């Protein structure tokens, strides 16, 4: 038989064909999930909002357009891509996953087409199958401990990873030991050749991605700042400890604001910011600018934040941790949210719901009006320059790095 690494022949022997077919099917499942995940990430390079696939059987369930699924949380998390400050959005982790599973599928078809195979071949397949399993374990741990949710597409990849490993081991065990293997070419040479093929299949999509992705022109950073950045109403909450002045407009019950806070915290650049929060609850109980409450209960929780004083961080973390629950309470009416706040923070009982704090919330909204801001959250201003709204998710690290670098250069030039 002609092998890629040389021309020696092995004795014909049976191949574990059925096991290899199962291995190929698991690899195909991984290819599909990797492709779906890569496609959803890449679609966001147009800086718009898109519905994303979030189903264990892609195409069967309706895509998530509301941004409430675990898939959305994972996609928008800082762990969905790497090198985010090098290129807008970074390089999606799904892309090498797509390449690895494509390589495993290629391996499966290649082995199935052969009349005989050696354990050296199946041994490499086992080693290659360890890559997605190891990556899946790391990402499952991150999903569980950092993001707090699992995405169904990711679970599909985890299952495919486990499947390819199990079937690769089975194929290896079922392949008879060859007596002439020691006489063949070097094991490292063979494995090295296959390794290079694998690297090519992982590197190529990344190179194509980097070559074809849209550039980010400087003109997109020519945004206006705040007309009245000063805090004359005394409504800003100081949460930062960095050196660069920043103002974040946020709603404590907005899922995008929570994800934004997590991205900022995960980014090294977030620590550079001396962030002041301005509350903009998108809840019609106090905000006349929304016809329907996008985040019911946000007015009461915003009051709690203004009442919290030195415990602001603690109350904000609590609000983020219980967002869904608080929104559900808010949908049933403000009193239920007040009751929950008073239960969890008895010290705020004398403040929330009172006329003074309600007037402060109103002043916060008037600050928004005075600055003619769009009715959306979150919004970030760094050195009184707005980070474009389209860049507060996947593009945050890249754009923030450029804004901070520009500020540093201007500071140095003075």
């Amino acid at each position: 038989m002609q092998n890629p690494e040389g021309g020696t022949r092995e004795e014909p022997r049976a191949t574990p064909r059925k096991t290899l077919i199962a291995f190929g099917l698991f690899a195909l499942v991984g290819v599909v999930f990797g492709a779906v995940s890569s496609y959803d990430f890449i679609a966001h390079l147009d800086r718009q909002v898109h519905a994303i696939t979030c189903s264990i059987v892609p195409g069967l369930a309706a895509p998530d357009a509301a941004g409430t699924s675990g898939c959305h949380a994972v996609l928008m998390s800082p762990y969905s891509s790497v090198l985010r400050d090098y290129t807008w959005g970074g390089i999606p982790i799904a892309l090498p996953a797509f390449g690895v599973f494509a390589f495993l599928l290629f391996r499966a078809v290649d082995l199935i087409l052969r009349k005989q195979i050696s354990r050296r071949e199946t041994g490499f397949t086992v080693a290659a199958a360890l890559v997605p399993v190891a990556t899946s374990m790391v990402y499952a741990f991150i999903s569980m401990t950092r993001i707090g949710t699992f995405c169904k597409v990711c679970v599909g990849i985890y299952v495919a990873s486990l499947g390819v490993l199990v079937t690769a081991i089975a194929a290896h065990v079922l392949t008879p030991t060859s007596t002439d293997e020691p006489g063949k070419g070097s094991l490292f040479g063979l494995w090295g050749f296959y390794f290079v093929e694998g690297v090519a299949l992982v590197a190529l999509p990344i190179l194509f991605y980097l070559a074809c992705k849209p550039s980010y022109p400087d003109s997109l950073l020519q945004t206006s700042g705040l007309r009245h950045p000063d805090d004359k109403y005394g409504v800003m909450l100081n949460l930062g400890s960095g050196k660069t002045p920043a103002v974040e407009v946020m709603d404590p019950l907005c899922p995008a604001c929570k994800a934004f806070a997590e991205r900022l915290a995960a980014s090294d650049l977030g620590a550079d910011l001396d962030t002041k929060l301005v509350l903009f609850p998108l809840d019609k109980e106090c905000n006349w600018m929304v016809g329907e409450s996008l985040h019911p209960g946000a007015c009461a929780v915003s009051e709690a934040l203004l009442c919290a004083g030195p415990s602001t961080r603690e109350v904000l973390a609590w609000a983020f941790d219980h967002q869904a629950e608080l929104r559900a309470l808010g949908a049933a009416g403000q009193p239920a949210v007040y009751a929950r706040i008073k239960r969890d923070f008895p010290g705020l009982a004398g403040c929330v719901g009172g006329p003074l704090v309600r007037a402060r919330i109103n002043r916060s909204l008037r600050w928004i009006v005075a600055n003619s801001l769009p009715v959306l959250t979150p919004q970030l201003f760094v050195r009184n320059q707005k980070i474009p709204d389209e860049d507060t998710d996947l593009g945050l690290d890249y754009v923030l790095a450029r804004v901070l670098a520009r500020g540093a250069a201007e500071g140095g030039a003075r």
Partner: protein
Amino acid sequence: MNTGRAHVFLMLATLAAVGLSVAVWTRSAAGRLAENRGKAPEVATASASDMGYCTGDLKVILRRVLTSCGLVSGGSSRGCQPLQARQVAAMSGGDFNALFAPLSARAAILQFDKDSADLDPAAIEQLEKTFADRRGASYFFVVSRASPEGSVEHNRDLSHRRGSAVLDAIKAKFQDPDIDQEVGLLWLGEEFAQLDQQFCQWQRSRSSEACTTADLNRSSFIAWIDCRL
């Protein structure tokens, strides 16, 4: 096809399929980005509220009253004399009161004792509740009156003191830096736009007590006005 060739063919096919897929997806996103560049985002801009009752006629009157009262022009005058109010409104007392009819859910009447300008606890509570419920309103009106007992001059002064007491209470409680541009005072004494019995149905600080027109007019009528000028 021998195994080596099949291997190479398979490898090239896989590389092409993966590479082309990624290239097509990425170029597609780049194309959409180019199409959307320069398009204004479809997001509302934050603004003060402008309710349906803010008709053109009402805004004309409001602007006249607010300008004369020193709120719009930023002049030094603080509040309107009864005579000024009548002149700028250029309408009868009944028509003037009718202007406020759409505010029945937003307004409150703070009642005072006879010949007194002191806010009682119920009036203070009602004032704080009403002032805190600002929402998107731009202006807060305080329209003070007096019942017809006593001289015209005394009642004019009494209604002035009632309006000032309300303003002082707001300033002390809320410490709003914009208060001088927000709160419009009108003191009408007994001379103009006395409240009639129908206002007994509105929110009053003494809602548990009997309501006569004399009781109603020993008062400060307060309301946020949800109109943008």
